[in-house]
């Protein structure tokens, strides 16, 4: 009998809020993060970086550095693999510059020395001759005729002829006839929107400790969202066999997408190979800003037509994403997410991936979606305002639901947008009175969520407790969720399960912790691995009782005889079976390896009240409510945490955070003092409502929740500020100077 634990109600453990298993380690300081590892004989490394936005590297002279007391190795691009192309070629080029430095902060050489102080002194002694080239950092400027070409020949086949070589990918989709749709509208609003690049802003800088021998075998410890990916990339960059490099993921001090790629690990390994000693490499905060992350900046045009009753007749969007000096800006996802919440007869969206002399963009929580929502939901707010329509009723009227043809093609399965919007409408926040100087903003948000390659292994111990090995780094409490799901299937207490993030030598390939996939995919794999173990437990009971395996079922931690044998035998508890497993067939383990493809999309809607100080232009968020469909909240407290964290990051993006480049192409604010993320005194409490419309693609109904929460805030806050000041805010961040300008333009108008 195939065991199937699928259910969406009647849970014993799922949906409860136990303490996280790594809590004690994290409050006592003993949890080991990336920079907390040390090895005997370890060297410290530092990286030499380009001060120029765009420059040809004429010569690198390392002789003075190598002559310094305590310096053990220096590497440049010559110490890495050659002939890499595509994704790995781009990553290596970003990890260590080849012929050209492509942005301010691009690595050009690295040193390993007996102390961090010596390593830092030694990189100053490396002399690099540059031929400075013209640069461009703005997305619109980079597309103009005459703009400096970052890398010729980088464009792929998707790009139409006649565009600047910096446009490296192009995306287009839609259906219907938008011109006909606009002709049916009573009001058409078209506007231009701009967002700046922001950084993921994890508090833990990238850090690793690598050992690599001349035999091609290596060990790597690093903070990453995906250590199998690190293994694969490092092996390619260093010319190793993948399996010969074992990678262990440390506790991770935040990632938000920014630790889904590789920046420093191949450098530490190359230095280690040369020095024949372990090498530790930790980025400084300034290096984190200059050379890791950030997200794309955007330039966007959105046009929407609406009838007087609120029906959207057509929607069109053009989204230009600046992705730094490499292809990869998420222009497809921006375009696909833009109108996803709405049931549209006529829709058309276009995305451009544009290179510039900035660091290679990295994923940041629902990459590309928050910017699209900012533009689209601002236009919808403007339409509702001008037509005197309720913003929630209007969104409900046009909402995507099961069976709707999505704006980018597929037909929606069961989704929870309508339930989410109805929960917003029912929330007391939605009708609470506003004070003078305050405005309210609403926005929807959408993210796909993801499945991906996943392997989980579960081993039972003789005492009936269980060890679960998963391969997705725990970035926000996922070990607790895995233990809850395993407990539900095994019928043993949450506390009897220990979940470990396994290293690359222990499990099959696990895709990165990204795409809000962990609770969905590793959760599904944990459930299936537990079912596999239960099947074997039932088999041992059946053998003991001398009845067929399919005449045994599992309930609350017991094997029980069923059907004609019901009541013939005393139920066997898990620990009675495991106590003798060595003599009844050997260890009992469950495992699961697959690529689950039933990830359920998630929609959210946020309500924001903002208050604007008319004298300073400073905006304060005074009340914030997040409503989002989680499918099924396995550990509701951590789901709330994801909702709140996404909202807070969105508040920073909307109001303060931006990469500021000087005319020299250098980043002007590479530190937390000048790149200001929200602090405790900036924020109110963030209210949350968990909507649960089960995902049919997960045994317990889980949808991912981590990313969707950052999709609505930019627009919701911009709508709140626009409604407070009476001027449409079209550019982020809405820093005080920009709001003051808007207030002045309103006064002049």
């Amino acid at each position: 009998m195939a065991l199937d634990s699928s259910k969406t109600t009647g849970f014993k453990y799922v949906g409860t809020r136990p303490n996280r298993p790594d809590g004690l380690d994290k409050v006592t300081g003993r949890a080991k993060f990336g920079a907390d590892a040390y090895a005997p004989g370890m060297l410290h490394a530092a990286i030499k970086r380009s001060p120029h936005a765009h420059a040809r590297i004429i010569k690198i002279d390392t002789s003075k550095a190598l002559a310094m007391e305590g310096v053990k190795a220096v590497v440049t691009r010559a110490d890495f693999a050659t002939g890499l192309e595509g994704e790995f070629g781009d990553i290596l080029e970003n990890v260590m510059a080849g012929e050209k430095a492509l942005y301010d902060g691009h690595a050009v050489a690295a040193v390993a020395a007996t102390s961090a102080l010596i390593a830092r002194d030694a990189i100053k002694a490396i002399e690099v001759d540059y031929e400075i080239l013209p640069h461009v950092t703005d997305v619109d400027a980079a597309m103009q005729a005459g703009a400096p070409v970052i890398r010729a020949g980088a464009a792929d086949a998707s790009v139409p002829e006649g565009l600047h070589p910096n446009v490296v990918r192009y995306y287009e989709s839609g259906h219907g006839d938008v011109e006909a749709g606009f002709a049916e509208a009573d009001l058409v609003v078209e506007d231009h929107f701009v967002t700046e690049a922001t950084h993921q802003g994890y508090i833990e800088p990238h850090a690793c400790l690598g050992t690599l021998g001349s035999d091609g075998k290596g060990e790597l410890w690093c903070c990453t969202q995906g250590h199998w990916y690190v293994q694969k990339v490092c092996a390619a960059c260093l010319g190793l066999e993948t399996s010969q490099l074992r990678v262990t993921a440390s506790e991770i001090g935040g990632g938000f997408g920014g630790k889904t790629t590789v920046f420093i690990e191949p450098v530490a390994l190359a230095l280690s190979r040369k020095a024949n000693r372990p090498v530790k490499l930790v980025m400084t905060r300034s290096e984190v800003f200059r050379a890791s992350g950030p997200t794309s900046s955007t330039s966007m045009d959105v046009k929407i037509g609406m009838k007087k009753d609120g029906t959207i007749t057509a929607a069109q969007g053009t989204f230009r994403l600046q992705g730094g000096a490499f292809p990869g800006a998420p222009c497809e996802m921006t375009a696909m997410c833009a109108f996803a919440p709405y049931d549209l007869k006529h829709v058309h969206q276009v995305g451009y991936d544009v290179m510039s002399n900035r660091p290679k963009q990295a994923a940041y929580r629902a990459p590309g979606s928050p910017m699209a929502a900012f533009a689209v939901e601002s236009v919808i707010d403007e339409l509702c305002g001008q037509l005197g329509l309720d913003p929630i009723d209007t969104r409900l009227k046009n909402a995507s639901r099961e069976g709707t043809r999505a704006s980018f093609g597929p037909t929606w399965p069961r989704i929870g947008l309508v339930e989410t919007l109805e929960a917003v409408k029912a929330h007391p926040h939605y009708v609470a009175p506003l004070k003078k100087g305050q405005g309210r903003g609403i926005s929807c948000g959408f993210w796909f969520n993801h499945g991906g390659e996943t392997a989980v292994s579960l081993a039972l111990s003789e005492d009936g407790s269980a060890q679960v090995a998963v391969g997705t780094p725990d970035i926000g409490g996922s070990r607790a969720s895995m233990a809850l799901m395993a407990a539900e299937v095994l019928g043993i207490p949450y506390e009897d399960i220990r979940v470990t993030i396994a290293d690359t030598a222990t499990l099959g390939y696990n895709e990165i912790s990204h795409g809000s996939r962990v609770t969905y995919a590793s959760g599904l794999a944990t459930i299936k691995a537990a079912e596999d173990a239960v099947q074997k437990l039932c088999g041992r009971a059946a053998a003991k009782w001398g009845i067929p395996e399919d005449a045994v079922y599992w309930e609350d931690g017991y094997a029980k005889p069923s059907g004609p044998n019901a009541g013939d035998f005393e139920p066997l508890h898990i620990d009675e079976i495991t106590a003798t497993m060595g003599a009844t067939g050997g260890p009992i383990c469950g495992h699961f390896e697959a690529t689950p493809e039933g990830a359920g999309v998630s929609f959210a809607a946020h309500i924001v009240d903002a208050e604007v100080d008319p004298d300073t232009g400073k905006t304060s968020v005074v009340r914030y409510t997040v409503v989002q469909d989680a499918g099924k909240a396995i550990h509701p407290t951590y789901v709330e945490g994801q909702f709140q964290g996404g909202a807070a990051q969105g508040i920073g993006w909307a109001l303060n955070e931006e990469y500021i480049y000087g005319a020299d192409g250098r980043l002007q604010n590479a530190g937390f003092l000048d790149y200001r993320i929200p602090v405790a005194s900036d924020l109110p409490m963030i209210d949350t409502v968990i909507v649960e419309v089960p995902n049919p693609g997960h045994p317990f109904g889980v949808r991912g929740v981590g990313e969707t929460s950052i999709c609505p805030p930019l627009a919701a806050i911009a709508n709140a500020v626009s409604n407070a000041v009476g001027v449409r805010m079209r550019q982020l961040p809405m820093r005080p100077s920009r709001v003051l300008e808007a207030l002045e333009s309103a006064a002049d108008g």
Partner: protein
Amino acid sequence: MSKTHVTTKVNGDEVEFLCDPRETLLDVLRDRLHLTGAKEGCGTGDCGACSVTVDGRLVCSCLMLGVEAEGKEIGTVEGIAEGETLHPLQQKFIEYAALQCGICTPGILVATKALLEKNPDPTESEVRYWLAGNLCRCTGYDKIIRAVMDTAAEMREAS
């Protein structure tokens, strides 16, 4: 470069070390004393992940030199629990899920413990402004503030 001999107390234990005059107190705690609870998030005093107390005063250990620890009493996150008994703040942070990744947690615990010793009955605003020097990127601070307020209330009742 010659090193300086320093004698200090960390979490009540006398320790000695040699350090380069350029090393920060954070470098010394982590690399020489192997107390890695304090984290370097920025190295410029902006994030608070390296918060420790020096003679009872809250400081960013990345902004102080190791040699300045001579004769002082340093308190780090490793010294907050008493034996196997967690400090009420540590217990509440776990219960409230006041951490996601946990990298800022040591600094926030050191900072809030210092706050409650100074002001056992803080308002929400006072907690928020006291913690304005401790960046957390995961939580939006909501659950942290609630954990601190509840700890303060419980400690007041117990005293």
